[in-house]
C-alpha cells in the first residue's frame, strides 16, 4: 500500500528560497478570478464622472452645473470650489530637499480639484454623480465651463525663461526646486585638468505609464461610525491611508479603511492619492451611497500621471589613461502642472545616487531644476530616476570612448570598481557593499558572443541592415530604509497568513514571501497565504516602490519568523512540559533536545489558541505582529547587451538579440525574477524605440490612444538570454537586492547604445529616445547627404 503523500509535508528542496515555483497567484489570475477594483459591486452603488479642462492653461470664470443636474438620474454635481469649501486638504509633495541656496523649495498649491486656474488638458475641475456610469458621463458632458484661456508654458527650457507664462503667481520662474549636489569648484578643477571631455545633451522622454487596469475606486461612508472605506488600487494601503486621512480628509487614520484587491499594474503610478478618489469619497458622504469611479482609456492618457520627462547637459571628464575624473549633469525635470508626492525625486536625488553607477568617480556635480509646465503631472515610473542616472553615465561612456578613440568596453573595465575596493563610498555619499562588476560584464560579453558580433554585423549589412551592439551596465540604489510590518498569523484551519505592507501588483509577492516563510518556519508552502491590501490589518507599511518589496517585506517576514521561533520555544516548553532552554526548533517543529518529543509549529499554534490557561510569563499567542526597521539601500547591478538591426530603407529598428547578466543578490524565485526583468526590459524598449508623447503648441495631447501612442506588442519583443551572478548583500538577512526596476535601467541604456552604434557606421553619434523609424531615417538620410 502506497501512502498518499501528505500535502502538508514540508519540502524545502522544492519550495524554499531559490526554487522556480510557479506562482500561487496564477490559478486565480489565469481563470479570470482576479478581483480588480472595477469588478467590485456594492449594493446600490452609484457612479461619478469627471469634468476636465479642455485647455492647457486658463482662469476659471464659471462652471455651470445646471444642465447636468437637470438630467434624469443625476444625483449631484460639484466643482473644485465646492470641495475646497468643504474643507478637504491639499496634495503636497513629500520631498524634503532644499534649494541650492538653502531656502526651502516652493510647494505649488493643489486642492483636490482645480478651483481658480486650470493648468493642463485633463485637469479635473468638477464631477457629477448619477445612477449609472452612462448617465454620469452624459451629465459631465453637459457641464458648461467658462474658462479664460491663458498662454501655456509647455517646454521646460521655455518655462524657465524670463517672460514665460507662469503657472502659479507665487512661483515666478516656474521652478519648484533648484537642486544641487556636489562640489562645483572641485568638479570644475577636475574638468580643467581633463584630457578628454565627453559632452552630450540628453533627453529622457516623457512616457505614458499605461498600466492595463484603468484607475478606479469604490468609496463608502458610514455616517453612523463617521468612517470612510475606499477600495482602490494602490502600491500599499498604509502609506496611502496616511496621505488620505492626514493630508486630505484631515481625520485620524482609524477613521479610514483602505482596501486594495488585485491591481492591474502600477509601475509607480498608484503610489498616492488621486483627485478622483476624493471626489468619490465626497459624493459617498453627501449622498450616503457607495460611489464607483472608473476611468476610461482616452482620458487616462492625460489624467494618469506620466513618467520620466527630463533633459540634461551631461559631461564626463577623463584623464589620459581613460580614468574618470568628474561628471557634471545640469538639467531639468518636468513636473507637469502640479507636484506629485514624489514627483521631484526622479530628477534630483535619484540622478545623484544612480549616475555614479558602478564606476570610480572622484567628483560629481548635479544641478537640476524641477520645472512646472502646462502638461500632465509627472510621477514615479519604473525606476524613477534609476534608469535615467544610468542612462546618462552609459551614454557618456560611449561618447567618451568615441572622442578618445578607445574601446568603450575597455573604458568600462578601467573604471569599474573592483571587488577589493569594496566597500566603496560613491560621490553620492552612498557606500556600495557588494558587487563584482567587471566579472559580471565579462560573463555577459561571453554569453552574448561578443566575439561573433563583427561577423553578425557583416551579415546584417549584406541584407541592408545596420547592426549595432550596445552595452548597458547599470547599478541602481534601491529605496532606502522604511519600516515595514512583518506579520505571521496562524489561522484556525491550519493555514498561515503573512501580513505585510508592500503590495503586489504583478510581482508575485504571495509566492516569494511564502517561499521565505516556508523555509524559515518549515510550514508548508501551500498552507501560506498573503494578506496585503487591508489597512485595518497593518501596523506599518512602506508599500511597494523603489524595488524594495523583497528587501523590506522579505526582511520583515524573516524577523517575524525569528520572533515566532523565539516565542514558540517558550510555548513549546509549556506544551511539552520542559524548560524552554531544552527546546530546539528544526524543520518546522519544536523538540526537546535529545529526544523525539516534538510539536509542529502549526500544531503548537493550535494548542496555544485552544489552551484554557497559559503561564503568566508566556506569550498569549504564536502570532506575531512586528515593525521591522527598514534594511539599508541595496545595489542591484547588471550588464545588458543589446543588438539591434536598423533597416536602412525605413529607419525601423528591431531588437534582434538581448543578453543580460544581473546581480540582484539572492535569487528567491528565478521564474519571477525573469518575469520582472523581461517586463522591465520591454518597458525600456518601449521608451527607447517607440513610446512618444506629443503635445501640440496649445498643449493638447496628440498621442492620446493606443492607436497613436505606440506600446510594445508581442512582435516587438526579443528573445532574452538571462543569466544571474548573485553577490548577496549582507545588509539584509536574505541577501536580496531588489529587481523590480533593473530591467528598465539595463534596457534603455543598452538599446540606445546599440542604436547609436549601428548609426555610427554612417557617422551619427547621438540620437534621443524614442528612436522612432522617422527619426532614425532622418538621421540616416542627412548622414548620407553629408557624405555625398
Amino acid at each position, binding site marked *: 500500500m502506497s501512502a498518499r503523500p501528505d500535502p502538508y509535508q514540508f519540502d524545502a528542496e522544492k519550495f524554499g528560497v531559490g526554487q522556480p515555483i*510557479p*506562482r500561487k497567484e*496564477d490559478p*486565480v*489570475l*489565469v*481563470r*479570470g*478570478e482576479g478581483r*480588480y477594483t472595477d*469588478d467590485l459591486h456594492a449594493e446600490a452603488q452609484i457612479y461619478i464622472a469627471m469634468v476636465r479642462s479642455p485647455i492647457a492653461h486658463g482662469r476659471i470664470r464659471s462652471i455651470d452645473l445646471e444642465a447636468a443636474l437637470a438630467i434624469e438620474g443625476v444625483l449631484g454635481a460639484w466643482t473644485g470650489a465646492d470641495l475646497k469649501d468643504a474643507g478637504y486638504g491639499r496634495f503636497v509633495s513629500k520631498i524634503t530637499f532644499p534649494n541650492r541656496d538653502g531656502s526651502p523649495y516652493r510647494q505649488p498649491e493643489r486642492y483636490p480639484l482645480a478651483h481658480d486656474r486650470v493648468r493642463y488638458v485633463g485637469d479635473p475641475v468638477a464631477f457629477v454623480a448619477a445612477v449609472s456610469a452612462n448617465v454620469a*458621463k*452624459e451629465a459631465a*458632458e453637459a457641464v458648461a465651463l467658462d474658462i479664460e484661456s491663458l498662454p501655456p508654458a509647455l517646454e521646460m527650457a521655455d518655462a524657465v525663461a524670463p517672460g514665460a507664462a507662469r503657472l502659479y503667481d507665487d512661483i515666478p520662474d516656474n521652478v519648484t526646486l533648484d537642486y544641487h549636489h556636489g562640489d562645483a569648484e572641485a568638479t570644475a578643477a577636475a574638468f580643467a585638468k581633463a584630457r578628454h571631455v565627453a559632452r552630450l545633451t540628453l533627453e529622457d522622454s516623457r512616457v505614458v505609464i*499605461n*498600466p*492595463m*487596469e*484603468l484607475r478606479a475606486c469604490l468609496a463608502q461612508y458610514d455616517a453612523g461610525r463617521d468612517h470612510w472605506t475606499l477600495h482602490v488600487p494602490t502600491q500599499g494601503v498604509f502609506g496611502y491611508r496616511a496621505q488620505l486621512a492626514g493630508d486630505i480628509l484631515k481625520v485620524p487614520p482609524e477613521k479610514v479603511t483602505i482596501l486594495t484587491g*488585485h*491591481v*492591474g*499594474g502600477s509601475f509607480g503610478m498608484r503610489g498616492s492619492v488621486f483627485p478622483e478618489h476624493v471626489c468619490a469619497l465626497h459624493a459617498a458622504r453627501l449622498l450616503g451611497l457607495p460611489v464607483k469611479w472608473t476611468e476610461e*482609456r*482616452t482620458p487616462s492618457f492625460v489624467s494618469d500621471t506620466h513618467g520620466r520627462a527630463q533633459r540634461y547637459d551631461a559631461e564626463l571628464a577623463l584623464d589620459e589613461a581613460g580614468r574618470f575624473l568628474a561628471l557634471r549633469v545640469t538639467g531639468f525635470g518636468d513636473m507637469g502642472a502640479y507636484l506629485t508626492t514624489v514627483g521631484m525625486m526622479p530628477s534630483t536625488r535619484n540622478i545623484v545616487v544612480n549616475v555614479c553607477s558602478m564606476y570610480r568617480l572622484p567628483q560629481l556635480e548635479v544641478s537640476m531644476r524641477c520645472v512646472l509646465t502646462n502638461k500632465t503631472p509627472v510621477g514615479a515610473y519604473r525606476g524613477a530616476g534609476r534608469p535615467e542616472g544610468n542612462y546618462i553615465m552609459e551614454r557618456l561612456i560611449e561618447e567618451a570612448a568615441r572622442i578618445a578613440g578607445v574601446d568603450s568596453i575597455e573604458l568600462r573595465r578601467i573604471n569599474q570598481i573592483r571587488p577589493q575596493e569594496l566597500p566603496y563610498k560613491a560621490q553620492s555619499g552612498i557606500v556600495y557593499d557588494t558587487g563584482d562588476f567587471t566579472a559580471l560584464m565579462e560573463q555577459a560579453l561571453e554569453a552574448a558572443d561578443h566575439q561573433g558580433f563583427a561577423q553578425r554585423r557583416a551579415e546584417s549589412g549584406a541584407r541592408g*541592415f545596420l547592426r549595432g551592439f550596445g552595452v548597458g551596465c547599470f547599478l541602481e540604489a534601491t529605496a532606502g530604509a522604511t519600516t515595514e510590518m512583518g506579520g505571521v498569523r496562524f489561522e484556525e484551519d491550519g493555514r498561515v497568513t503573512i501580513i505585510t505592507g508592500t503590495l503586489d501588483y*504583478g*510581482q508575485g509577492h504571495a509566492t516569494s514571501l511564502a517561499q521565505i516563510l516556508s523555509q524559515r518556519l518549515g510550514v508548508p508552502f501551500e498552507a501560506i497565504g498573503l494578506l496585503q491590501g487591508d489597512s485595518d490589518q497593518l501596523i506599518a507599511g512602506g508599500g511597494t516602490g523603489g524595488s524594495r518589496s523583497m528587501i523590506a517585506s522579505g526582511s520583515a517576514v524573516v524577523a517575524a519568523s525569528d520572533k515566532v521561533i523565539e516565542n514558540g520555544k517558550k510555548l513549546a516548553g509549556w506544551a511539552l512540559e520542559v524548560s524552554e532552554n531544552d527546546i530546539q526548533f528544526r524543520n518546522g517543529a519544536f523538540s526537546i533536545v535529545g529526544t523525539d518529543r516534538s510539536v509542529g509549529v502549526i500544531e503548537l499554534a493550535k494548542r496555544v489558541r485552544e489552551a484554557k490557561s497559559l503561564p503568566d510569563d508566556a506569550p498569549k499567542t504564536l502570532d506575531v505582529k512586528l515593525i521591522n526597521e527598514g534594511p539599508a539601500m541595496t545595489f542591484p547591478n547588471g550588464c545588458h547587451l543589446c543588438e539591434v*538591426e536598423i*533597416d536602412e*530603407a*525605413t529607419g*525601423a529598428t*528591431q531588437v534582434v*538579440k538581448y543578453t543580460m547578466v544581473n546581480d540582484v543578490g539572492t535569487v528567491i524565485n528565478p*521564474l*519571477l525574477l*525573469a*518575469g520582472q526583468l*523581461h*517586463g522591465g*526590459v*520591454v518597458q525600456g524598449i518601449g521608451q527607447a524605440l*517607440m513610446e512618444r508623447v506629443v503635445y501640440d503648441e496649445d498643449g493638447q495631447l496628440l498621442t492620446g*490612444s*493606443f*492607436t497613436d501612442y*505606440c*506600446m*510594445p*506588442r*508581442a*512582435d*516587438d*519583443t*526579443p*528573445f*532574452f538570454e538571462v543569466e544571474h551572478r548573485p553577490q548577496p548583500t549582507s545588509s539584509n538577512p536574505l541577501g536580496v537586492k531588489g529587481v523590480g526596476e533593473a530591467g528598465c535601467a539595463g534596457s534603455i541604456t543598452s538599446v540606445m547604445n546599440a542604436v547609436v552604434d549601428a548609426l555610427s557606421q554612417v557617422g551619427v553619434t547621438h540620437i534621443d529616445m524614442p528612436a*522612432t*523609424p522617422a527619426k532614425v531615417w532622418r538621421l540616416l538620410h542627412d548622414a548620407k547627404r553629408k557624405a555625398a
Partner: protein
Amino acid sequence: MRRTIRFLLGEETREIESSDPTATLLDWLRADARLTGTKEGCAEGDCGACTVAIGRLSGGRLRYEAINSCIRLLATIDGCHVVTIEHLKRSDGSLHPVQQAMAAHHGSQCGFCTPGIVMSLYALWLNEERPDETRIEDALAGNLCRCTGYQPIIAAARGISDFGRRREDPLIANADAIAARLKTLRDEETLLVEQEERRLIAPATVNALADAVVKEPRATMLAGGTDVGLWVTKEMRDIAPVIYLGRVEALKRVEDRGDALIFGAGANHIDVRKALATIHPQLDELMRRFGGEQIRNAGTIGGNIANGSPIGDLPPALIALGATIMLRRGAGRRVIPLEQFFIAYRKQDRRAGEFIETITVPKPPPDALIHVSKVSKRFDEDISSVCGAFLLRRGPDGLVAEARLAFGGMAATPKRAANAETILKGKPWSEESVALAIGCLAVDFKPLDDMRASARYRATVAGNLLRRFLMETTDAAIATRVAGLMRADAPRAAHG
C-alpha cells in the same frame, strides 16, 4: 418577429427580453451577467483585455473566433456561443491547458490582460493545434500586456498542447452537440430588440434585410461593428435605430466564380484574406496587417467599404483590381464600380434604403503587374498613412495598356490617380514614365494633412510607392518589401 435575444453563454442557453439595443457585450457580461473575468482596458478594440471567443455556425460548421466584446453589441450575438474566461473552468477544478501553459511559463503578472490573452490563445488553439511563431504573433497583435514583455506568453502559446489535447477540449469534443443547440436557436424570424422606442432590427434573410432597410432608411447599418462600436463607446452617439446585418448567412459568403471572387458584404476579414491571398501575396500581407486578430474576425469587407474612410485599407486594393459593388434597395439592384461609390469625404453613393450586398473582384489576368502597400507607423494594429494599390498591364508592344493606380490617405476618399494613369498609357514601363506619373500625382491629389502624417509626407510616399512598384516589377533581385523581409529573419525563430 422575435423579441428575445437567444444565445449560449457557456453551457447555458440565455434568452434576453427587452434590453438596451446598443448595450455592448462587455457591459452586459460585466454588469448584468456579473461575469467580471472579462476586462475593459480601452473600449476601442485596441488592447484585447475584453477578448472572448464567439462560436457560430458558418456553412454548417461550428467556428470559434476571438473578438473584442467591448465594441460588440449584445444583440449581435444572437444565435452564437459566447465563451468567456469563466467558461474554461473544468468540473474537477483543474486548469485548462491554455491556463496551465500560461502559469507554467509565467505568462501572467498583474493578471489584468490575462483573461483576454487566454481567450485569444484559446481561440487560436481551437483552430490550430501547434501554431507557429508568426501565427502566434498575429493572434496576439490585438492584445496589450504592460507587465510580461510577451515572451512568456509566446512560449505558453507554443506549449499549450503539452498540457492537453485539443480534441479533448469540451468545445471540440462536443462540437456536434453545440452545433445542434445553435441550430435550434436559429430561425428565419427577424429579431427585434427594443427599449423605450430605441430599436435594433436583425433580419435573418437577405430579403427581410432588404425590406427592413427600405422601411428604416435612416437606421444605422451595423455589420462587424468595428467602426460603429466606437461611435457608441467613444463618441457616445446614439446609433438607434440599428439594422444588424450579421445574422444573414448569405451575406457572409465568399465564392470563387473562376474569373472573379464574389464576396458577400458580410464576409469577415479572415475569409476575405484567404480569398484575396490567391490573387497576390501582397494582398495577403495587407490583410494580415488589418487591425488585430479580433478585428479581422469581426470586421467585414462591406463595413470597410461602406464606412467610407479615406484611410480604409481594402478600398484602394479593390479599386485597383477593378472591383464592383452591388447595391440593393428592396428588390432592386444596381452595380457600380467601387471607385464611383466614394463621392466626397465620408459621403458615399448609397441611396436611402440601399445596402451593399456583394462585392465582385475580377481576377487579374496572369500578365498583370500588381502591387499593394500599406504604409503605417507600425507593422500591425495601425492605421495607414498611405495605402497604395496598383494594377498595370502592358500590351503586346510592351507599352502600358492599362494602369489602375488607387490610393488611400491621399484625398478625402479612396481615389484613383486619373492623370497619372493617363500619362502612363502608351508609354514604356520605365523610370522616365514613372517620373512623369509622379509629377501628375500633385494634380491628382490633395493629400490629408493631419497628425498621423503631413500632406507632404503622404505625397512623397505616394510617389515612392510607384517607384517601388516599378522596381519590384522590373528587377526581381530588388527586395522592396522591407517590413516583411525584416520580419522573415526575425531572430526568435532561430531560438525556436
